[in-house]
């Protein structure tokens, strides 16, 4: 794949998180993975009440403490100290994954390495490392009502991450509903992948050039609105 787009504008991590957060509806229960996803907690649209779950056993928590503060007995799945809010509730790991696997979360947001045309996800093993960590990713991928993947559109050497068939070890099959990348928002549907939005300065044709499967351009396809 060429690197002819290498100097083009791309959304930064915070802006991608901001776009992800637009998906949160009033009353949603949401799990955010480590990395870009967790940043989305800062951008819940005004007027919507969203409850965050963390797989280490808490539903409903507030902001992340600054370094050196907070309670070591109260952290999110990334190990960051977070704050109690009215409504916070703690539980053990078995309960936590009953919530995850039982379909009780409205949205799960995770990072990704590859997403296939059918919505297969690969995100736990970078092939060069040979050893990876599954952690809670497989459970979150099969369990949430809506799985959103936030990732860069291409690899460091410009290979597409949105592919016809994943070449990396899978996390789960046919699980991804929406992909938010640094240049596009793509929905996975039964008919195929639908390009909903593209980054400023990009065109749908240019997004297609760095995407392996054929994209269906939505009739109302537009520039990403934040």
């Amino acid at each position, binding site marked *: 794949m060429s690197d002819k787009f290498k100097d083009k504008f791309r959304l930064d991590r915070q802006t991608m998180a901001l776009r992800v957060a637009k998906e949160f509806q009033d009353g949603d229960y949401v799990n955010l993975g*480590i990395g870009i996803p967790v940043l989305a907690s800062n951008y819940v649209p005004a007027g919507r009440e969203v409850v965050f779950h*963390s*797989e*280490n*056993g*808490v539903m409903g928590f507030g902001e992340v403490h600054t370094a*050196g503060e907070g*309670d*070591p*007995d*109260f*952290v*999110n*799945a990334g*190990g960051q100290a977070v704050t109690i809010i009215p409504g916070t509730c*703690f*539980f*053990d*790991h*078995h309960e*936590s*994954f009953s919530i*995850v*696997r039982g379909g009780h979360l409205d949205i799960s947001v995770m990072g990704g390495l590859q997403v296939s045309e059918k919505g*297969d996800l690969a995100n736990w093993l970078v092939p060069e490392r040979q*050893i*990876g*960590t*599954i*952690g*809670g*990713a*497989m*459970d979150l991928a*099969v*369990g949430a009502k809506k799985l959103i993947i936030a990732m860069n559109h291409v690899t460091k050497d410009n290979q597409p991450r949105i592919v016809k068939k994943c070449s990396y*070890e*899978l*996390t*789960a*099959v046919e699980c991804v509903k929406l992909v938010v990348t640094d240049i596009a928002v793509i929905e996975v549907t039964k008919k195929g992948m639908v390009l909903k939005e593209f980054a400023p300065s990009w065109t749908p044709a240019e997004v297609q050039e760095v995407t392996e499967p054929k994209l269906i351009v939505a009739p109302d396809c537009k520039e990403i609105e934040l």
Partner: protein
Amino acid sequence: MPINKIVASFDEAVADIPDGATIMIGGFGTVASTPTCLLEALARKGVKNITTVSNTTGFGSDVWRLLGYKFSEDMDVLVRNGLVKKAIVAAPVSTVYQNNFEKLLRAGKVEAEMVPQGTLAERIRAGKAGLGGVYVPTGVGTIVEKGKEKKVINGKTYLLELPLTADFALIKAHKGDRWGNLVYRRTSRTFNATMAGAAKVTIAEVDEIVELGQLDPEAIITPGVYVDRVIERPKDVKVDDRPISQEALDSQAKTKARGSA
């Protein structure tokens, strides 16, 4: 005779753990949720060829000391002292740095059986609850399904996952009484409460032992029937102790000095 599960020392608490034992280690991976003093005692005892069941394989005390923790040991103390033969674990390696377990794994000196985190919790619960296994949707179509029975139930595909039990479970709780009733503190409950009762012998390291009757019956998370031994952490450390800033600063200074040398 009154029931009394309280033991006097950490060394006594782990004295009968033999070579080759299977040991569950509670916690999420954060040192605050880890039965640190029990792990230190086990490392001192120095048993060989153990199989562990845990969420992670430990970051190591250097990491936690740098963050200012007084009790800074996690599963790494067993790994680096050569106690571990095999780990049944959700997160065998860290995504941010290479821990001792990863080094040994790459050298072929330890084995790992990786289990998705929710499946790990469910297999432990199955062991504790006397079930023969559970059908889970997690892992279908991935490396995890290898060698497992598949079954379609109500149109959805599941894998049969077998129960996990152990000889010993080492867990961390906040308060306990002489019957073994336990309460936890915030996100330090995690795998601790899940593992209580899933082993032949469950040993709980607690911040504080209280008189029978002092725990609110409505708030007890782990009924004492699951717990065999309760041991209190040294009293000089208060439950609410924050990381000690001076120690953290000293540790940071040392690391910086090491880095520039």
